[in-house]
C-alpha cells in the first residue's frame, strides 16, 4: 500500500463513528491521505463514505449526540483533530469542504469568496481583493465573473456556482480540501471542468473526495478506498484497485456485479 516516498498528510486510526440515534456508521477505519494526492472514497449508498468525509472537518459536531472514537491525525503537527480539546473551528480553518449541492450564500460573488477571510477578521480591502481574485483564478472562474463580482451568486449556472464554492473553500489556503460528491448535481461539461480543476488543485493541496461515479474516481484519483457497510474493505493505488483488486467484494463492485 502506498509508495514509500509519499508523505502522509493525515491519517485515520481505528476510527469509529456513532450517530446520535446509535447507528454505528463507521467501524475501525484506517486510512492515510498522502500529501498533494487525490484520494477517492467509493462504495454503495449508505456505506458511510460521506460520514467519514464529514468527520475530517468535524461537521458532525453541529448536531448533538454524535460520537467519534479513535483518531484522525493531521501532520506535520500530529494533531488529533477529533480530540475534544481541539476546537472544531480550528479544524475547519485548516480543512475546507465543498458540498454535494452547490451552496453559495445569497450574497454577492465577491462576498461569497471573501467570507472565509472575513470570518478570520480580515477587513483590508486590498488584501481581500487580491485573495478573491487569486481564489477565483484558482477555481478557473475568474474570467467568467471578473466584470460582475457584485452580482448575486445565484445568478451563476450550477457549474459556476460549484466552482464559486471551490473558490470560497480555496480562499483561506486550506491544507486539505474535502469534496462530497461535488459533481453529482452538475451536467457532464461542468463535471469535466470540476475534474480538471481538482487535478490542478492537487499541485497545492491534499484532496479527499467522495464519489458515486467510479469512472470519476478512476480518472482523477491517485488512491482509492472502497467502503461497504461502514467498513474500509480495501485501500490502494487507484490503478491497482481498478485493475487487480485484492478483495473479491471490491472486484464485484468495480465490475458492476454489485452495488
Amino acid at each position, binding site marked *: 500500500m502506498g509508495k514509500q516516498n509519499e508523505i502522509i498528510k493525515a491519517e485515520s486510526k481505528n476510527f469509529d463513528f456513532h450517530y446520535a440515534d446509535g447507528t454505528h456508521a463507521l467501524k475501525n477505519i484506517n486510512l492515510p491521505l498522502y500529501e498533494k494526492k487525490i484520494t477517492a472514497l467509493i462504495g454503495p449508498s449508505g456505506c458511510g463514505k460521506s460520514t467519514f468525509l464529514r468527520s475530517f472537518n468535524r461537521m458532525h459536531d*453541529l448536531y448533538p449526540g454524535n460520537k467519534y472514537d479513535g483518531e484522525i491525525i493531521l501532520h506535520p503537527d500530529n494533531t488529533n483533530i477529533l480530540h475534544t480539546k481541539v476546537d472544531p473551528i480550528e479544524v475547519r480553518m485548516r480543512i475546507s469542504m465543498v458540498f454535494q449541492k452547490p*451552496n453559495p450564500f*445569497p450574497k454577492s460573488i465577491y462576498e461569497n469568496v471573501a467570507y472565509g477571510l472575513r*470570518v478570520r477578521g480580515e477587513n483590508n480591502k486590498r488584501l481581500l481583493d487580491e485573495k478573491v481574485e487569486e481564489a477565483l483564478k484558482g477555481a478557473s472562474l475568474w474570467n467568467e465573473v471578473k466584470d460582475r463580482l457584485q452580482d448575486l451568486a445565484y445568478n451563476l449556472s450550477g457549474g459556476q456556482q460549484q466552482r464559486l464554492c471551490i473558490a470560497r473553500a480555496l480562499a483561506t489556503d486550506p491544507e486539505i480540501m474535502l469534496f462530497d460528491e461535488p459533481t453529482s448535481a452538475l451536467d457532464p461539461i461542468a463535471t469535466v471542468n470540476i475534474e480538471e480543476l481538482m487535478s490542478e488543485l492537487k499541485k497545492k493541496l491534499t484532496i479527499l473526495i467522495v464519489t458515486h461515479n467510479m469512472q470519476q474516481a478512476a480518472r482523477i484519483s491517485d488512491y482509492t478506498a472502497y467502503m461497504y457497510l461502514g467498513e474500509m474493505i480495501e485501500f490502494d493505488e487507484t490503478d491497482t484497485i481498478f485493475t487487480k483488486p485484492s478483495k473479491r467484494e471490491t472486484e464485484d463492485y468495480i465490475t458492476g456485479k454489485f452495488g
Partner: protein
Amino acid sequence: MASTIKPAKDLNAVRALIKKHKKNDRLFSVIGIFVIAALAIALLVLFLDLVIDGYPKMNLEFFSNFPSRKAEGAGILSAWVGSALVLTVTFFVAVPMGVAAGIYLEEYAKKGWFSDLIEINVANLAGVPSIIYGLLALGLFVYEFGLGTSILTAGLTLSLLMLPIVIVSTREAIRAIPVHIREAAYAVGATKWQVTLHHVLQYAMGGVLTGIIIGMARAIGETAPVITIGALTFIAFLPPAPVSEVMPFINFNWLDAGFTVLPIQMFNWISRPEHAFHINAAATGAVIIILTLLMNGLAIRLRYSIRKKIKW
C-alpha cells in the same frame, strides 16, 4: 396500419369517470369563491360604512384638535399622539427582546423537552385574551413597580402582547433557512455568533419584519388591556415633547405622562348619546383600519422585496 388500431372499449367509461371527478374540482372552486367573497364583502362593507359615516369629519382639523364637549370641534390629536408614543415604547421593548428570544431558542438552546415546553407556551401566549395581559400589567407595572398609568406602562403592556408574535415569526423565519447554507458557513470556520449575525439574521429578516409589523398592527387596535391599566378617556393636553430645542435635545419625561389611544377615544365617543359623537367614532375607526391596512401592506411589501434577493 393505424386504421387497424381500435380505441379501447372502455374509453367512454374513462371519460365519464374524469368528468365525474372534475365535478368535484368545480364544486370546491365555487365554495372557495363564495367563502372568500363573503369575507371580502364583510370587510369592505364595514370599512365603507365607517368611511361614509365618518366622512364629514375627515379633515386636517380632526387630527389637530383635542377632544371636546362639542362634537363638531372635537378631534383625535391626543389620541393619535398617545398611540404613536405608546407604540414607540412597544416597538423598542418587544422587537429586541422578541428577536433575541427567537434566535436563542432556535440557535442556541439545547433541544429537548424543556425547549419543547417553552415553544408550546410561547405559541399559547399569542392566543391569550388581551385583557389578561391588562390585568397582569395592572398588578405588575402599575402597582408593583409603581409606574402608574403612564405611556411607559401602556407600552410595556402592549409589548407583552406583541412578544409572542415576534418570537414565533422569528423562529419560523430562522427555520426556513436551509441546512446546507448553514453548513457552508460553518465549513469555512465561522463561529455560531458569526453564522447568526452574517447569515441567519440577514436571511430571516423578511419574516422577522413581517412579524414585527403584524404585531404592531395588532397592538395599535388593542383596547381592553389599555383600559384595564386605567388609561384616561378624555385628554385635552399633549405629553411633553420627546425632542426639544435645548440641550440635551431628547428627554424621556413623556414616558411618565397620562395618555389616551385611538381605540379608547373611539370607545368613548361611541358611548355618548349624541349622534354627532358617533360620527367622530366612525371617523376614528376608519383611521384605525386605514393604519392597520397600511401596516399590513408594508409587511407584505417588505417581505416581497427581501425574499426577491434570497434564493437557495
